[in-house]
């Protein structure tokens, strides 16, 4: 049995059997049949539940005349992301702000959850950033095709016909490299942050690791910003009209 956090244990206690049955029906063999839900998945579920509770709370108390503190925070974040999207994508950016906000909130809370004792960052395991990156990849290609239709292929073959096969190959590789770089950047930052804290904790177990937790807090915010910005940049490149 692997080491389980309390929330993972709770989920496995109540949902372990149905999840194991579902995985078995799909032909997947979990590594530990007694505890099919891993820490990363449990923390992801917790992040989603927290976000749902937070936004239901904010939505219930939303008011135009007397906005509360929570509403101010949410509106500030929304305005910030919309402003960045306007700068990167330009005309017609409103359609893409909800996705960027959703992925941003998820990653931000997932990163920050690791700072609380008793929890760990789901983004510190490679599976979760990979999921976010793959969804982003599908999303921007979908909007590229929706905007340009068949002409979307022109972005991949470049302006010179003779070089088209070469360009196509390079572009396909570079688009898949985006998945890799988005995944590894987020995963490695979170993982390395945990590792550094742990390494200094094993050297000096008092006070010093707190400095690195502070550093980790900054890294968590910056990595969220970068993930959202890169999502917007890729979207902007996919839907731009110049090509």
């Amino acid at each position, binding site marked *: 049995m692997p080491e389980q956090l309390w929330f993972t244990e709770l989920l496995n206690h109540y949902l372990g059997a149905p999840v194991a049955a579902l995985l078995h029906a799909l032909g997947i063999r979990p590594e530990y049949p007694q505890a099919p839900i891993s820490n990363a998945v449990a923390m992801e579920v917790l992040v989603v539940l927290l976000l749902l509770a937070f936004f239901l709370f904010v939505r219930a108390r939303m008011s135009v005349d007397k906005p509360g503190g929570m509403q101010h925070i949410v509106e500030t974040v929304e305005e910030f992301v919309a402003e960045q999207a306007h700068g990167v994508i330009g005309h017609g950016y409103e359609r893409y702000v909800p996705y960027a906000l959703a992925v941003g909130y998820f990653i931000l809370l997932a990163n920050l959850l690791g700072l609380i004792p008793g929890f760990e960052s789901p983004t510190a395991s490679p599976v979760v950033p990979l999921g976010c990156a793959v969804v982003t990849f599908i999303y921007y290609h979908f909007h590229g095709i929706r905007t340009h239709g068949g002409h979307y292929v022109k972005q991949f073959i470049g302006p010179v016909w003779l070089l088209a096969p070469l360009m196509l190959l390079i572009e396909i590789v570079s688009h898949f490299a985006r998945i890799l770089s988005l995944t590894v*950047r987020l995963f490695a*930052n979170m993982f*390395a942050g945990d590792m550094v804290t742990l390494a200094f904790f094993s050297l000096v177990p008092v006070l010093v690791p707190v400095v690195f937790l502070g550093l980790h807090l900054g890294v968590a915010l910056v990595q969220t910003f970068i993930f959202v910005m890169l999502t917007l940049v890729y979207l902007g490149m996919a839907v731009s009209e110049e090509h």
Partner: protein
Amino acid sequence: MRKLTFLVLLFVILTVASPVYAQGGATSSNWSVPIGVGLGMGLAAGLAGLGQGKVAGSVAEALARNPGARPGIQLALFIGLAFIESLVLFTFVLLFLRTS
């Protein structure tokens, strides 16, 4: 007296607590692995430091010349730093995968 108590307490924490968190057992007897990891990570971090220093220097210069262009410059700064940094992280992940 307080100082002495504090020092004794600190000494006890430092000497008693550290072995608790020490990693147990040397898994690899290959002496070249730690040297390779140190060299690789050192090279990656040092060269990325040179690159990021150039980015930060250029940003400072640009902001000094034209403080009004802050939003655009900051966007380029963050994305540029992220791309440079991700190369170090690729190295880190590769080393981690190869050694563990």
